[in-house]
């Protein structure tokens, strides 16, 4: 378990955020704060708009209403060029890895370095190799994304997201499609990077094992009321949330499912053990 403080200064502040596609409201009235050094979890059932919230935070989708601030600076109501500059300060790991398939891993990691630094080709290659080594992919510099496994693609995606030493790293469902061991290793990597580099992590996930083992703060989105119905330490929410829906979600529906054989038994990942 990771001991982190909740007393550090706010890094990302979201207030009264509304998100919609045309007239179709995805989420409304979101207000939460991500502190420096948090491993912040955005969670909720499938289809509740987690990924849309992430898109808004990383500058791909403008909000219908509300304010997003990074270190106090307004993200959406500034000029596009200022927003671009702010976007340089964060890295994103996409759900599918989103590595550029026509480039090798070293080129994937090196491209942002070549673009935003004055480094020479040899230095960029060394730096890219170092980033890949950090995520456990030393020796894979000249592999193409299609030649490595899904878990390795996610790791390489993190290496690329970390290329410019960002202040905040956004991860969209990092453990989706990974086996429990790879997923655990990825969680360890996230915590390690946070501890060693001080990077704030914002993770969209519904993987309970990850949520409890690495999350220090969270927001819970509800698809029915289309807003957040809980926030805070996920372990705290699991045991003491006043909202039964939140407790049910975080306890794997244990309080609701009473009839029939418990299908959760047959599942390979056991959340309660991983959380310990």
């Amino acid at each position, binding site marked *: 378990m990771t001991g982190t403080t909740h007393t550090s200064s706010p890094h990302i502040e979201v207030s009264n955020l509304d998100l919609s596609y045309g007239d179709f409201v995805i989420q409304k009235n979101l207000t939460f704060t991500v502190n420096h050094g948090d491993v912040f979890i955005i969670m909720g059932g499938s289809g509740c708009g987690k990924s849309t919230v992430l898109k808004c935070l990383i500058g791909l989708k403008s909000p219908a209403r509300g304010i997003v601030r990074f270190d106090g600076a307004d993200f959406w109501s500034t000029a596009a060029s200022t927003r671009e500059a702010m976007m340089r300060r964060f890295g994103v790991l996409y759900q599918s890895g989103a590595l550029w398939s026509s480039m090798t891993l070293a080129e994937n990691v090196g491209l942002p370095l070549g*673009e935003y630094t004055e480094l020479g080709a040899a230095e960029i290659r060394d730096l890219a190799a170092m980033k890949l080594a950090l995520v456990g992919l030393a020796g894979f510099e000249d592999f193409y994304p299609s030649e490595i496994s899904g878990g390795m693609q996610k790791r390489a995606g993190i290496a690329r997201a970390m290329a410019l030493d960002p202040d905040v790293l956004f991860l969209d469902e990092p453990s989706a499609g990974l086996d429990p061991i790879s997923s655990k290793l990825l969680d360890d990597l996230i915590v390690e990077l946070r501890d060693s580099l001080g990077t704030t992590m914002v993770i969209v996930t519904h993987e309970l094992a990850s949520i409890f083992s690495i999350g220090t703060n969270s927001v819970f989105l509800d698809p029915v009321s289309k807003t957040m119905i809980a926030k805070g330490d996920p372990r705290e929410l699991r045991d003491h949330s006043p909202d039964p829906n939140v407790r049910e979600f975080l306890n794997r529906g244990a309080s609701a499912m009473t009839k029939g054989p418990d299908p959760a038994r047959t599942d390979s990942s056991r959340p309660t053990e991983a959380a310990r």
Partner: protein
Amino acid sequence: MESAVRLAENILAQAPRMTVAKDHATDRKTGAFSVEMGTAGVGLLAFSGDWTLQAKAPGAAAIASALAAGTGIRRIGFDTDALAQWDSTFITAILGVVAQGKAAGIDVDLGGLPAGAQRLVTLATAVPERQGARRTATRDGFLVGLGKWWLASYKSMQDSLAFVGEATIALARFSVGRARFRRVDLMIALEACGPKALPIVTLISVLIGLILAFVGAIQLRQFGAQIYVADLVAIAMAREMAAIMTGIIMAGRTGAAFAAQLGTMQVNEEIDAFRTLGFSPMEFLVLPRMLALIVMMPLLCIYANILGILGGGIVGIWMLGLTPTAYYVQTIASVSLTDFGIGISKSVIFGIVVALAGCLKGLQSGRSASAVGDAATSAVVLSIVMIIVLDGFFAVVTSIMGI
């Protein structure tokens, strides 16, 4: 939700096995039902025979009308003693009854159903239908449809114009050396648009030359004017056919490839990754492809000219008995540099059209496999239509200019 689905799969997997064992030897009996009035307003719905996907059971509508006909029913019960095999068909029928009962405010007692069926019905009714989730099929009137079509076309026109504008800016930035893209991407695009397109351009150009010569030869031979086949082929290739045919080949070959490449990158979130890292997809992805076609299309057009004229020469020499020298001299005399210039400038324009259409459709692609296919298709269609329309425009302009 996930656990509920798995539970349903378990039960469904068990259901046929249990029932098949029970009644395997007897003839398959078609499912049937009857409604009996019991005591105290209980309508007893009795099922018999097979209620399976293969057996022809009465539909939910028949049960609904039978129940509606029974007056004074205050409670619905089930009798399934005579029921042989059942599967999802039966559950669907029961769900219809449950929904009908709910609408009419009548209690439905599931007690009489087989245990597995009871569990499935409970499962299906456990999560209430999400409000507003069901899609209602609405038929728009003619005017509404027309309005929607116009709005969609207007939006797409706006997007296309914005795209062309951005592409122009990217080209301008390139010309002052400020565009950012990987040189290796340009090299790959150049190879795909140039050397790799040569075989098909060779084949098509020679054949087009042959065909033009044949068409002309049949007519011109009647007047003994075979030698003018050379004029016909040379002028047609130089002014029109070389540029149009390479344009259409490149639309099918390269434009479709561009759309599919960028569409797949869209699906894989690779385009999003470019955007969040501050790389302009226009400069990074579109510009190298556009440059490659701008460079290669005129070269391919010149190549197609030469081969087309050679193709015409084959017909002229072997079929019409012209000497190679006569054919050559006649060709040189008939076409001017202006004719070639018109064809070659058109090919540059067609190259830009193919690149822009392919990249635009690719970047606008939706995030599914069929959307990428649609993007490739519409890129080719758009390119070819634009090539023909622009060619008509050029024909009018050159005739007004008298060249």
